[in-house]
């Protein structure tokens, strides 16, 4: 999820959300920190990759698991990707050859059958149709034709499998721009419910080709997230989310265009191979 979108979800006070995904990093942690999640279909949470352990959110998750206020369905990045893909293919399930033999199989909703052609065992994972998906793209036209540069990660299938799809885009472009190279289009218009222009909408995370992640900001967040008391996080969110009226104000607080220009240079490895 684009950080700009998550900020707004926090600001607008959405609660009692289910979250379905493979790996969730900063976006997922933001929602967990703020106690907005009651249900997870997930492959990876509570990791700040290599920046530290989000102790506050972890404690919250553990406590809520114990009281039953949070329910987790265990999956893996692959099986979640394929659950989205099943939905995006218009299928009720997909067969997969991972997950078998593990406890994650037991704590998931997957089933195992024998392949009727070969007799080998395969795991079936059910399609997942999220109510809402929001992804951030490099460019989109006003109809919702979206182009993404570089790797696609899970965006192709997640976008196609959601009942409501919100696009945030670095730039809204004329359809003529899209038509210049339709093979760069990842999501065609008929999936899209809303298109919102949000420059730098992925900041402080990485937007391939445009700006690298802001390691300083992430380290500062990670430090706050590591404070088990929650006090440091409270300050972080007051400073950056609840105390700002929108993403523009947040960007300004974070150094605005100047910072983005620095991150653009890092992204392109200027002065470094």
């Amino acid at each position, binding site marked *: 999820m684009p950080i700009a979108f998550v900020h707004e979800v926090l600001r607008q006070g959405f609660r009692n959300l289910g979250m379905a995904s*493979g*790996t969730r*990093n900063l976006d997922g942690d933001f929602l967990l920190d703020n106690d907005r999640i009651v249900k997870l279909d*997930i*492959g*990876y*949470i*509570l*990791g700040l*990759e*290599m*920046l530290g352990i989000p102790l506050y959110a*972890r404690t919250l*998750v*553990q406590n809520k*698991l*114990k009281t*039953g206020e949070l329910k987790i369905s*265990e*999956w*893996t*990045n*692959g*099986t979640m*990707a*394929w659950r989205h*893909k099943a939905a995006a293919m218009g299928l009720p399930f997909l067969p*997969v*050859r*991972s*997950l*078998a*033999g*593990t*406890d*994650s199989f037991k*704590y998931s909703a997957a089933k*195992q059958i024998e392949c009727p052609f070969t007799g*080998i*065992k395969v*795991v079936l994972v059910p399609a997942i149709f999220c109510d809402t998906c929001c992804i951030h793209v490099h460019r989109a036209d006003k109809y919702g034709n979206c182009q993404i540069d*570089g*790797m*696609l*990660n*899970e*965006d*192709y*299938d997640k976008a196609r499998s959601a009942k409501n799809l919100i696009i945030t885009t670095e730039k809204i472009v004329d359809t003529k721009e899209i038509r210049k190279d339709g093979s760069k289009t990842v999501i065609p218009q008929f999936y899209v419910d809303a298109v919102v222009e949000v420059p730098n909408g992925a900041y402080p995370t*990485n*937007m*391939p*080709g445009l700006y*690298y*992640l802001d*390691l300083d900001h992430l380290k500062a967040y990670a430090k706050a997230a590591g404070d088990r008391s929650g006090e440091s996080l409270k300050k972080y969110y007051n400073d950056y989310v609840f105390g700002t009226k929108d993403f523009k104000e947040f960007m300004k607080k974070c150094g605005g265009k100047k910072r983005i220009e620095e991150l653009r240079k890092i*992204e392109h*490895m200027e002065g*470094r*191979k």
Partner: protein
Amino acid sequence: MSKLKYNHIEFMASIASRYLEDGKVVFAGTGIPMLAAALAKRIHSPNLVLIFEAGGVAPEASMLPLSVADSRTTYHATYCASMPAAFEMLQQGIASYAFLGGAQIDKYGNLNSTLIGDDYYHPKTRLPGSGGANEAASFAWQTFIIMNHNRNRFVEKPYYITTPGYLDGPGGRERAGLAPDAGPYMVFTELCVLDFEPLSKRMRLKSLLPGVTVEKVIQETGFELLFHENITTEKEPTEEELRVLREEVDPWRVVLSRGDAKEE
């Protein structure tokens, strides 16, 4: 010990990198696995092909990606795919190696990265979970594992099996429905290098890091180990390995610095 100063992460990454054969296809997780793969590509195995979970394939060597979806995984990449495409290539058997970490491991190489505690619903510590590790270890022909070595981590019975090793031993993977002829291959720790005895599929001590004794390894291992006939000693990191790690691969010391605290 040589006069070179290095921390245990620099050491583990250097040793592991030497075992990644040139020309193979490796699917590496975030952190030390990526560090080792990046080092291998720059020194020992220039034709190593890296596949990253979010779709990056064979980028030009650059700075260490900080996540599997970092744009450095597609820096001048020959192929920018998607996560399902990456996993489907693996599911077809494209990856020679997976390279993973974990919180707990047992003698069959099964990994736990989901929770600490006897009761799933009342975890002592909730951990991040599989990520793509389950797929990596299910699909790659050989899985490399790198982790810290102590009795809380090398255990008889993990609290939870997130990622399959040989499961309950010989034939275990096949009985469960995983593809045959694949599984854990080597384990790198700050004490030693281990592999798996081919018939019993049990973990076996292969070599020691300099200054470490067999007794120390036994003491830090919570299950009964097997032993190679000739247990060798790994070579220390070379100046070149350290230079490349520090100057080229992780100049910001994002991962390398995690080894500093312990030793400096």
